[in-house]
C-alpha cells in the first residue's frame, strides 16, 4: 500500500485530504506544519508528500527543499497544495524541488486523479 505524508495546518483540510486518500486505499500520516512534516519524513518512508504552502513554523516550500536534501526523498514526488495558481508560487515550488501542484479548492476526485499521475 502506498504511504502518503499529508502536511497542512488546517485541521479540516488535512482531515479531508487524509480521508479521501484513505478511502482510496492509501495509507496516510499527517503533520500540521513543515517542521513536523520533516521530522515525520525522517522517521518514515513515503511514496508521496502532499503539502500546503502557507503554514506557520515552516512553510511548504522550505519543507520541500529540506526533503530534497534527504537521500530517501530525492525522487519522491512532492505535491504542493495551493490556493493560488500564481506563476511566482509555481516557480518557487519548482525551484525548491516540488514535483507539481494541486490547486484548491480541494476536490477529492481531482486529488485522486492527480495522485495517479505521480505515484509509481
Amino acid at each position, binding site marked *: 500500500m502506498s504511504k502518503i505524508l499529508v502536511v497542512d*495546518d*488546517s*485541521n*479540516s*483540510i488535512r*482531515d*479531508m485530504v487524509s*480521508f*479521501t486518500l484513505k*478511502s*482510496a486505499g492509501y495509507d496516510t500520516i499527517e503533520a500540521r506544519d513543515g517542521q513536523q512534516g520533516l521530522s515525520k519524513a525522517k522517521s518514515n518512508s513515503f511514496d508521496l508528500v502532499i503539502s500546503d504552502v*502557507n*503554514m*506557520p513554523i515552516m512553510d511548504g516550500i522550505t519543507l520541500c527543499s529540506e526533503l*530534497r536534501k534527504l537521500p530517501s526523498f*530525492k*525522487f*519522491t*514526488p*512532492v505535491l504542493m497544495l495551493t*490556493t493560488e495558481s500564481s506563476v511566482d508560487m509555481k*516557480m518557487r515550488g*519548482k525551484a525548491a*524541488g*516540488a*514535483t*507539481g*501542484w494541486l*490547486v*484548491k*479548492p*480541494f*476536490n*477529492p*476526485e*481531482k486529488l*485522486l*486523479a*492527480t495522485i*495517479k*499521475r*505521480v*505515484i*509509481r
Partner: protein
Amino acid sequence: MSIDLSQFIPSFLEESLEGLELMETSLLNLQQGDDDSINAIFRAAHSIKGGAGTFGFNEVTEFTHLVETLLDEMRDGRREVAQPDIELLLVSVDCLRMLIEAIRDEETCNNSNILATAKRLELALDHSNSESKCKLSNETSDQQNNTNATWLITFVPEPHLVQTGNDPLLLFNALSELGEVSLEAHSKDIPSLLELDAEALYLSWSLAIKTSANEDDIKEVFEWVEDECQLTITKKPIDNQDEKALVTPLHDEMVELPLAKQNPSTAVSITQEKKSQKAKNDSGSIRVGVDKVDSLINLVGELVITQSMLSELGNDFEMSKLARLTTGLEQLLQNTKELQESVMRIRMLPISFVFNRFPRLVHDLSKKTGKEITLVIDGEQTELDKTVMEQIGDPLVHLVRNAVDHGIESKAVRLANGKAEKGTITLAAYHQGGNIVIEINDDGGGINRQAVFEKALEKGIVDANTTLSESQVFDLIFEPGFSTAKELSDISGRGVGMDVVKKNIQSLGGRIQIESEPGKGSQFKVYLPLTLAILDGQLVKVGSEVYIIPLVTIVESLQVKEQLVNRVSGDMVLYRLREDNVPIIPIYNLFNIPAENKEISNALLVVVEADGQKVGLMVDDLLAQQQVVVKSLNENYQQVDGISGATILGDGSVAMILDIPGMIQMALKKSQRAQQVKLAKKPQLEGVSS
C-alpha cells in the same frame, strides 16, 4: 468514485470561526512592518477560502478572496498598513463571521452589510471585480471542437527532471488518458558509462497522440515540467495519410472528466446533505490536546494494573497479605483521584476563549464613546470548565461595557483630574483555592457611593434610615431596576443588566464582589467554581441527616459562646461575630426535621456567606470535607427550596447539597412573616427568589 466530505463541514466551520478570531485579535494589534501578524492573518483567510471552496460555500469564498487580496497587498508591501484598511478588515471579519454562522445555523444570510462591505473591499482594491470576471470566462471558454486530431509532441527533459519526483512514464500514462498514444524513445544522448550520472535522465521522446482534446489539455499534462524540458506540440494536418493508421475508434469514450476541471455537482450535493447532517452535531464538541488524552490512557493503564493486583490478592486472601491489600487500596485511591482530575481537565479550556472577544469590544466601544482605552489581559491561559465558560461570556461583556461606559471618564475629565488621557481596563484571571477568579479593573472615576445610595432611595430599593456598609452600597447596583447612568446609553443598556449579571454568576455557583475607590477606579471580582460537576463540600450532620455545605460559601465554623448571642430582635437570634451581627439559622427548624441539639447556647455554627450576607447555620456535628459529585435534583426529582442538588456518599446513602443563598432567603422570609423584623444587616429584597 464519489467521496462524501460533508462530515468535515462542522470542523471546517469551527476552524473558520477560530481563524476569524485570530484575524480579529491580530488586526487589533497590527503595526506597520509586523510581517508575522500579517502572515498569520493572511493564512487564516487563506484557509477559510480554501475550505469554503471545497464545500461550495461560494459567498464565503468570494468574500474571502477580496479580503485575501487586500491582505496580500499588505503582505507584499504594496499597500500600507493603515487604520482605515484595518477597520475595513475588521468589518469584513464580522461579515465572514455572519456568513459562517449562517451556514452553521442553516439560515440564509442576507445582511446588506455584507454586500456593502464587499463593495468597499472592491473599491479599496481598485480593480473592482475585473479579476473575477476574467476567471469566469476562463472556465467557460475551454470546451470547443471535439473532433479528433493528431498531435505531434517532442519531449526533451532536462537530466535533473526525475529529481523533482516527476517520472516521464507517468506523464505518458496521463497523456494516454486523453487518447491513443504512440511514442518513440531516443537514447542518443546517453553518455559513456564513465560519464554517466546514475541519477540523471538522458532519454528524450517523440510522441503522437490522437485525441479530441485540445492543445491546452495536452499542455496541462506537461504543466509541472514545462520549465524543465523542451516541449513542442504541433497539430498534424488533417489530410495526412498516416492518420488512419493511428486511429482507433475505441477511445472516443475516453474523454472522461478533464482532470483539472472542478466538478460543480459535488459541491452542490454536499451543501444539501449538510442540512440533514446538522441536527446530529448539536451535541457540541471539545477539541482536546493529545497530551490530555495520553495522560488519561496512562492512568487507565495504571488502574488496570492496580485492579489486577487487587483481584489477585482477593483470590486467596490471608491476613498476612493485609499490608499489600492496604497498599493496593491506597494505589486505587491515588489512581481514582488522578483519573478524576484528568477527566476534569478534558473539559477545561483556557479562558482566552472568552477573553478573546474583548480587545475588539473595547476597540469598538472606545471609538463609539471617544474615550481612549488600553485593554490589558492577564492570565488568559487559566483553565475553566467549558460549561462555565460558555455561560460567563455574556456577564463579562456586560461588566466590561459598564467599565468603558461608566467607569472610564472622558478625556477632558481625566486630564482635569491629573490622570493619563488614556484609560486602562484590566481583565485578569487566576486560580485561587478551588475557584477561578476573574477581575475586571478600571482606572476610572470609581463608583460614587452617594449617587448609588440616592438612586436606590429614589427607586425605593432602600429607605432613608438604613445604614449600609460600603460594600452593601455597592451591592445595590445589582438590585433589579437599578441604573446610575443619568442618561441611558446604547452601550450598557438600560440597567436591566447588572441584576441579571449577578443572577447568572450565582446560577453557576459563583459570586461577585465590588471594590471601588473614588477617583482611582473600580474592581469587579467574579469568583467561579472550576467545574459544575464536582463540588468541594463540608459534610454536616443534623439529626439523622447528612447535608453538604459548599466549601466556597463557608467563612468559618465555631462553637457558640453564650455571651455573644443576642436574642433581642424577636424571632431572629443574632450572633456577635467580631463587628458583624450574624443571624443564626437552625437547619432543623428550616427543614422541619428532628435534631439532637436544639439549644443555641452550646450549638455548633457554620458561618456561611452568600450575596454579602453572613449567616450561621446551626448543625449537630461537623463531619468530613470531601469532593462530591453533583446530581441534579430537578432531573431526578423536583426543585426543592434550599437544596441545590444531591450526591451519593461512600456508604451509598444520599445526601442533600445545601443551596446557601436560597436558604438565606428562606430564613429571612420566614422571620419576616413571623414578625416585621428590621434586619440591621441588609435591606430586604422583595421579589427576589433563589
